[in-house]
């Protein structure tokens, strides 16, 4: 790879699996529970976090030597808030219906633990290019889980993917519904996301026992 050194590439690939923000660091769970009932919302959320985290990491990294450490949290908050407002306004302008589905959760990206976590743990100690890659990697890891959870919840809960009915029509009883299949209402409610995330964590740790913590 000419573009990325091996070390740089690992900044992107690590958070996808063995250092995933949701399944390993257990950060950003709240939004993963709240907005994953539909795949579309999951994707938009993933893209929004990608934008905020990548740009935010670069900005913080550029300012890292001039931020007084006592007020660094406030400075970080201002950076996140600015970026989140940009995302929120863009969504409201170009995808109004979707922004209503996501409602407060776009605004709550500000409090998403992953973002503050990466600012604190990485951007304050590394250069802008590395911070940028780290932001991309972590938000991709976050988005990957969001999309997996959203896929299963929308498929099993509503029988659709991105809003398109893939299993047939539940009212006219076509497709799978003609043989008695029914949507699983449990998948629509947020606790189901907790269980799906739990199953992902379970599968991941049984495939790679090195991830299991010692008690």
């Amino acid at each position: 790879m000419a573009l990325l050194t091996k070390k740089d590439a690992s900044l992107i690939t690590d958070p996808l699996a063995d250092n995933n923000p949701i399944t390993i660091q257990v950060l950003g769970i709240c939004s993963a529970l709240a907005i994953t009932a539909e795949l579309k919302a999951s994707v938009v959320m993933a893209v929004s976090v990608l934008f905020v985290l990548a740009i935010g990491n670069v900005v913080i990294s550029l300012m890292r030597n001039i931020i007084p450490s006592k007020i660094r949290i406030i400075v970080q908050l201002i950076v996140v808030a600015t970026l989140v407002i940009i995302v929120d306004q863009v969504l409201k302008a170009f995808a109004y219906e979707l922004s209503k589905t996501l409602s407060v959760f776009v605004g709550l990206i500000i409090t998403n633990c992953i973002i503050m976590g990466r600012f604190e743990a990485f951007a304050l100690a590394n250069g802008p290019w590395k911070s940028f890659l780290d932001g991309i990697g972590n938000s991709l890891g976050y988005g990957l889980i969001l999309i997996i959870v959203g896929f299963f919840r929308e498929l099993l809960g509503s029988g659709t993917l991105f809003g398109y009915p893939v299993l047939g029509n539940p009212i006219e009883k076509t497709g799978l519904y003609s043989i008695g299949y029914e949507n699983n209402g449990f998948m629509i409610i947020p606790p189901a996301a907790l269980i799906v995330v739990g199953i992902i964590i379970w599968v991941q740790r049984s495939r790679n026992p090195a991830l299991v913590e010692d008690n």
Partner: protein
Amino acid sequence: MSDKKLTFKKRLHILKHHYRGKKMAPAFNALHTFLFAPDETTHNGSHVRAADDLKRTMNTVIMALVPVLLFSMFNAGYQHFSAINGFPQEFSLVNDFLTWDNFWIGIIKVLPLVVVSYGVGLLVEFIFAVIKGHEVEEGYLVTGMLVPLIVPIDTPLWMLSVAVVFGVVIGKEVFGGTGMNILNPALTIRAFLFFAYPTWMSGDKVWVYQAVERAGGPDAISGETILGYLAQNKGAEMSYSVSDMFFGFIPGSVGETSTFLILLGGLFLIFSKIASWRIMLSAVIGSLVMGLIFNGVVDQGWIGETSKFYGLMSFDFWQHLIVGGLAFGIVYMATDPVTGAQTNRGKWFYGFFIGFLSVMIRVFNPAYPEGVFLAILLMNVFAPTIDHYVVRGNVKRRLKRLKNATILPKDSAGKANELHAETA
């Protein structure tokens, strides 16, 4: 012994030895120990010889459930034919209830539920035993019998299978299998069904065989539960007498209706010392107290007849015990030794709140006038906390006694202070 005289038991022994150490060994061992006592004994260490192993305990509970199951098979037919032809004017137990026609409906509707519950549940247990390489545990024996008894009779079998897989895997295996689960697996399965497929778990169509298929047609039938009638303030339209409710000739989940047989099963479990009488008694007290409070509220005139809670709140407090799943839940579910409180004092709290919350949820639940399974699951979660405080309280009390003792050995007062500092 010549080869011809090999018994079935002997063949299984040989099969088991053949597979020893191989991947599928737990599956064969399970089949073997399910049918026969194992042929090997442990070799080192000292052991307690006791007749009441896990399998014996489980079998006792199943014995207590058999009358309920048989009754439910007759009741399945009785409710079906009564919904079509009307309830008999002069009820005769032999002519109207214990008939072959009624039992046949039970065979074609209740038995498949039992078979699917055991088949799917044991399959999951076998798979986990093989993957994890441990012996198959008996834990599913009771759960598998409870599950068909706490679902509506028209529950589609595939839904039951999905729920059983969910309940056994998420409710039990992820915590480490039998004896390690936090939530009662049977109730986890029930709760999953309730939240996943609410239209199949509530309403007036699911409690009677064929009511769903006939809905909307000229020969439509329905069978609302008593709690359903009360929740709609239609208590006056009910044709069930108190003795119907007590003996169980009413619609409801498959096995929950007959309080009489559940009572007998409960007494059997108490006398065989399998289930805790403390939990049962305190749960009964808890539900009576909550029922009395609601009755009192109605008597005071704070809740008028126009209120949507009037029907359930004005229902006689003691009758809560003989309708719905309360009796079944108290006797067979709340007393689960794994998920319930372990300390004697804790059992009183645990049981009391199960009864108390059951009636409370029953009255206030907007979607479904029943709450026993939710109350028990909630208290399952709190059981370890209750035990923790009971044990802490005991430690504190004994330390206090040690401190206040008049005749002390030389250094025990200092020791007590030391201990106190540690616990505080």
